[in-house]
């Protein structure tokens, strides 16, 4: 079965997979591989509809999706809102800055207050790792993690995997490198869990101060030599350095040295495989982890990732609404 899914990524999963295991999406760590495949397939079915504005799918009509972003974000929030609207859901933004959170109310009280207004799906971004887990314990709504601290960013992980699948038609056996500030990256964690479950060989690369050694226990391979690693990779996912999460002394000497050691540029690209897939979850720091020519180059799928994010988030909202996989058809 997995072999068939590999050969034909668009093929329908077996009929036995008739239900999702739950509604919350807190991380990819707790999702079984089969559930990840179901979500990817659900996303594939929504893809034709995801980036065109004329038709809406009625599947979430009459349902209220609230986005509660307690940490600034543009692309993820817009992507969730648009995905919800394309499924005909009502959406409401809960802006943290203007809310009672800034008046000393606890996160749980705030979420319960919003919930009392009848929401079914709460999309949460929060600077504290585990905040969505805490909310899921205290509210009845389905909680979708839109990025929590340095923990997980499951929809980003899913859309990255979706993008790889679109381009490479498989995940198993691929050698995927994630380069940069792994220590603080929720994108890295979600990618690692998802990719490992689907059978990829996962490498992380960056300064030793930003790579947690216990990753080895998960089966992740660690390199601090980007030049040696790059020629072996099928996919490279370049991450931003999260300076805002670094407290205390800087964890590497300078941006210049970082860019020399770990930046993706044209010279390095010449030694990469011809079909290397270049990814970046954004926002980009051009000239630091990636040079503009590479970011905008022919092997970059950075904008495809953004587009695929819509389809993936539609699939995640579909699941969060408690619908069966592929319920009420796809876009066809």
């Amino acid at each position, binding site marked *: 079965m997995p072999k068939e899914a590999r050969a034909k990524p668009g093929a329908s999963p077996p009929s036995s997979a008739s239900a999702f295991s739950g509604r919350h999406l807190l991380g990819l760590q707790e999702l079984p591989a089969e559930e990840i495949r179901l979500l990817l397939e659900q996303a594939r079915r929504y893809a034709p509809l995801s980036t065109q504005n004329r038709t809406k799918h009625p599947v979430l009509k009459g349902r209220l999706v609230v986005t509660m972003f307690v940490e600034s974000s543009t692309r993820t929030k817009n992507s969730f809102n648009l995905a919800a609207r394309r499924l005909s859901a009502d959406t409401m933004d809960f802006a943290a800055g203007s809310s009672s959170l800034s008046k000393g109310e606890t996160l749980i009280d705030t979420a319960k207050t919003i919930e009392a207004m009848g929401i079914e799906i709460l999309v949460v971004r929060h600077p504290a*790792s585990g905040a969505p887990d*805490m909310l899921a*314990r205290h509210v009845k709504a389905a909680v979708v993690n839109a990025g929590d601290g*340095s923990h997980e960013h499951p929809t980003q992980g899913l859309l990255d995997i979706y993008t790889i699948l679109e381009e490479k038609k498989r995940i198993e056996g691929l050698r995927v490198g994630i380069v940069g500030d792994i220590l603080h990256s929720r994108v890295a964690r979600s990618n690692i869990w998802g990719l490992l479950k689907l059978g990829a060989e996962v490498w992380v690369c960056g300064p030793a101060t930003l790579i947690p050694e216990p990753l080895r226990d998960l089966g992740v391979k660690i390199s601090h030599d980007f030049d040696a690693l790059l020629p072996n990779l099928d996919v490279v996912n370049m991450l931003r350095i999260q300076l805002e999460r670094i407290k205390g002394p800087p964890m590497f000497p300078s941006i210049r040295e970082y860019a020399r050691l770990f930046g993706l540029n044209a010279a390095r690209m010449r030694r990469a495989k011809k079909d290397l897939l270049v990814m970046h979850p954004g926002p980009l720091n051009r000239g630091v982890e990636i040079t503009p020519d590479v970011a905008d180059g022919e092997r970059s799928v950075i904008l495809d990732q953004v587009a695929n994010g819509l389809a993936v988030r539609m699939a995640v909202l579909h699941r969060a609404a408690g619908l069966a996989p592929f319920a009420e058809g796809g876009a066809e």
Partner: protein
Amino acid sequence: MSTLLIRNGRVIDPASGLDGPANVFVRDGKIESVGKATPKAAEAFDAKGLVVCPGLIDMHVHLREPGKEEEETIASGAAAAVAGGFTSVAAMPNTEPACDSEAQVEFTLLQGRRAGMAHVYPIGAVTRGRKGAELAEIGQMHRGGAVAFSDDGTPVHNAALMRLALEYARMFDRAVIQHSEDPNLFCGCMHEGRVSMELGLEGIPAVCEESMIGRDIMLARMTGGHLHAAHISTRGSAELIRRGKADGVRVTAEVTPHHFTLTDDRIRSYDPVFKMNPPLREGPDVQAMIDGLRDGTIDAIACDHAPHAPEEKEVEFAEAPFGVIGLETTLALVMTYLVGPGHLTLAQAIEKMTINPAKILRLPKGTLAPGADADVTIFDPKKKWKVDIHKFRSRSRNCPFHGWELRGKAVKVVVGGRLLDCTTAPA
């Protein structure tokens, strides 16, 4: 003149090497005799089937008074102590304001006497305001009744100051209790390891604790002062203390029940009830705590009772304060997880909660020898019960053992000759 006879119990007094059926006779607040005799007494208690031992001492609690009386008071903490079978507790000075003067030491003693429950002994601050800059009036506080000195909650970071503290406290034959942690390495909210990596929570490495213990052992060796390492939690710490003791350094150590029962795996729920400092460590560290207790490296069991209000504690994990309460679960955790599996004999376990902490704090307690203070704990070593935080006498509920089935429960305590009930004593 008051007399009390505790009959028919299994009397265990590690300090006197006693373990067997006997009657304990108390007169005017002192132990008069332990033996077969049944002198006439004004009050009597039949302890058949129960263990009768010296009153348990918890040498590390936070009673929050003054400053955070909504979380605990000296009275409520002393009542929680009695409910848990403790007859004495030593209160850490990280109150608001800090207990750093003779007047505040005497205030703590006075409030303890007013409460009339377990004895409450003040630990004075090492430095003024616990700011780590200059010595507090250790001599004055000693005169006022401080039993030891500590800046607990924060370490004495400055090595020169720690040296002075060890030298100065040595004059009064008092221990300096160090909360061992290098502030520069302390920048997280849980143990640094695989779990913190997976959860995306900033970690506190084991070496944060160990490097400070290593330094302090060297300072204790140099000064001849008595270093007591509070709540040790790592393999490395246990090994450093083991070596220090072997080298003849005056170093003692304590461990909390949560550090010999729980690992950082519990934090996968992101529930702040598992957030404490030092943090929950890994399986081999828990084993090292048990081994350290067994071979004598770790002298005492103390719960680091740290009450917190729910609105403070039930927030995002990284934002929540450190600390859990323990006075009402310690005895049962010791019985269930140390004595039950045979890691410690009953006598060894009692030793770690009686004579050993008494010696560290220089208290004339922890034994049933004739003439000793009449503090006695009477407990049922087999009684099964389920932890229910809502029944606690403590004002706070931040206990990680809610719902656990444990074995061993205090029935009565004698505090200074007075018989008190451990289950229904007045609040």
